[in-house]
């Protein structure tokens, strides 16, 4: 291979890219490197971006049609035959419709299946509540042996896809539809089960995942302008949670704010509370969708409507400091 240009970098400056697009590119690269990688989709390959892989490696791509339970089971069978299957569809259908198949067929047998779902969270936008997965992390997190990863940007997504292909066991990777700013530093290297600390604050720390990491960084800048020292951690692996980083962060400041594009029930905020309640009681405030369904609208309108904004984080930090 010759010199490869990172498709997410133009003239040295990273650009905003949807994590699903980064997934499509990473799969293509992975497919070229590894013969054992196979991809399955449930009639959404254009949206999940697995279509790129399908076009280049048609003999290793299986469209299962609109049948998510069969999608998960077939992926499980391919893993038993020694393949490394990536099974993709929208997050709510993959984790909701096929939850019990993931529990019984994949996790109970600890099969090497990579469930990479797109269209998670409220930023699905106009399609509305039926298509917005606000509880997928909760559903996957309770499964024994499951790893749950929510990448923050395109660069991290690419690294996550390569990392999970090397790992033997079931993984859920949560991706989005909307473009997200590139925020991870150039020298960042994703490690499964490790959070990335941008800065550790003395006044408060924000533990965020997915698109909320960039929102948290924005809030941090606003708070800095007001003289507050606030830290940000990208907790991209939600299970197993990086307890060491979390505990160190909680020791640094009295206030922890979690931020996720997910229900505040069962996701990152809950995971953080579980660890801190056991090991290092702290004041934790959770930013997320508050036990309600979403609705139609433009992604940025919905982010405002459900309080997933830098302003909301700033307000929360200042209220509970």
């Amino acid at each position, binding site marked *: 291979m010759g010199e490869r240009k990172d498709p997410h970098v133009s003239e040295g400056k990273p650009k905003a890219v949807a994590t699903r697009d980064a997934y499509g590119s990473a799969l293509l690269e992975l497919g070229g490197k590894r013969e054992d990688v*196979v991809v399955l989709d449930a009639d959404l390959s254009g949206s999940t971006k697995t279509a790129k892989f399908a076009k280049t490696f048609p003999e290793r791509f299986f469209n299962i049609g609109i049948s998510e339970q069969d999608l998960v*089971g077939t992926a499980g*069978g391919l893993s038993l035959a020694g*393949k490394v299957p990536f099974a993709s569809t929208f997050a709510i259908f993959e984790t909701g419709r096929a939850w019990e198949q993931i529990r019984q067929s994949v996790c*109970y047998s600890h099969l090497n299946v990579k469930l990479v779902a797109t269209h998670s969270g409220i930023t699905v936008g106009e399609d509305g509540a039926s298509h917005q997965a606000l509880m997928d992390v909760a559903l996957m997190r309770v499964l024994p042996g499951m790893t749950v990863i929510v990448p923050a940007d395109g660069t991290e997504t690419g690294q996550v896809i390569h990392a999970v292909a090397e790992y033997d066991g079931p993984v859920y990777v949560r991706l989005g539809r909307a473009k997200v700013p590139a925020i991870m530093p150039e020298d960042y290297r994703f490690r499964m089960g490790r959070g990335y600390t941008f800065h550790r604050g003395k006044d408060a720390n924000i533990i965020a995942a997915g698109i909320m990491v960039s929102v948290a960084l924005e809030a941090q800048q606003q708070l800095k302008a007001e003289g507050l020292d606030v830290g940000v951690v990208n907790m991209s692996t939600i299970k197993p949670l990086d307890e060491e980083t979390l505990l160190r962060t909680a020791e640094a400041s009295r206030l922890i704010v979690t931020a996720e594009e997910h229900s505040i029930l069962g996701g990152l905020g809950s995971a953080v509370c579980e660890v801190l309640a056991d090991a290092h009681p702290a004041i934790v405030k959770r930013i997320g969708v508050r036990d309600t369904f979403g609705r139609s609208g433009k992604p940025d309108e919905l982010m405002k409507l459900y309080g997933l904004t830098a302003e909301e984080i700033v307000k929360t930090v200042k209220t509970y400091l």
Partner: protein
Amino acid sequence: MKAATVVKNAGALSLRAKEVRREIIRMLTEAESGHTGGSLSAADIVTVLYFYKMRHRPEDPLWKERDRFILSKGHAAPLLYAVLALSGYFDRTLLRTLRKVDSVLQGHPSSKMLQGIEVSTGSLGQGLSIANGVALGLRMDGLDSRVYCLLGDGELQEGQVWEAAMTAAHYCLDNLCAIVDNNGLQIDGFCCDVMKIEPVTDKWKAFGWNVFDIDGHDMEQIIAALDEAERVKGKPSVIVARTVKGKGVSFFEGKAEYHGMAPTKEEEEKALKELA
């Protein structure tokens, strides 16, 4: 490494099936719970698979070129444990530990606990999808191994079975053979009363499968169907095996209540006499 013992004669296979049934009765009685009816109804089919048809090596359970058996009706675990033990995958004395708290013989098969089990099952409707995936993977690798998947007839009420039926036909999985243990009963009663599944053979035909309709207790018919299925190219095969729930023990036969009930000590004694 030698392959599993192959029994070629239908009469000898019947004797082996009787032995399998005796083990099922003994282990269920000892366990004091478990699924009697559906383990006995499929005993002839699974005996023919393990002692005649399938290419497998009990000493090398992960042998790459083995044929695969997936027990989609996971509640027939006692049957699977019996044939695995008699094949030599593990010691027969282990059968006495079925369903005990320190045993690897779980109420429904757990692949992480016991070698010889391809995948954990028990929640119905999921095995055929897995069998499809295995069949696709084997074909990609150019292996001529075959995949067998045993389903219950009540299990056909699960929608995922028909999703998988479409997939197998769409991908022309002729290295796959499904077998339906068509004993006509499910926990709540007759399948035709609970939720009608007939016409079963027409359903599979309509989904693009090659269908065999046989007496699931006639060894010659089971052998012939399994052999013929291997010769059918371009589509998956299904054997609809007409069976009797509780087969082999007169007072269990055709009784829905013995779907999920183990024999008592007295019943065990009587049953073993009938199976002598």
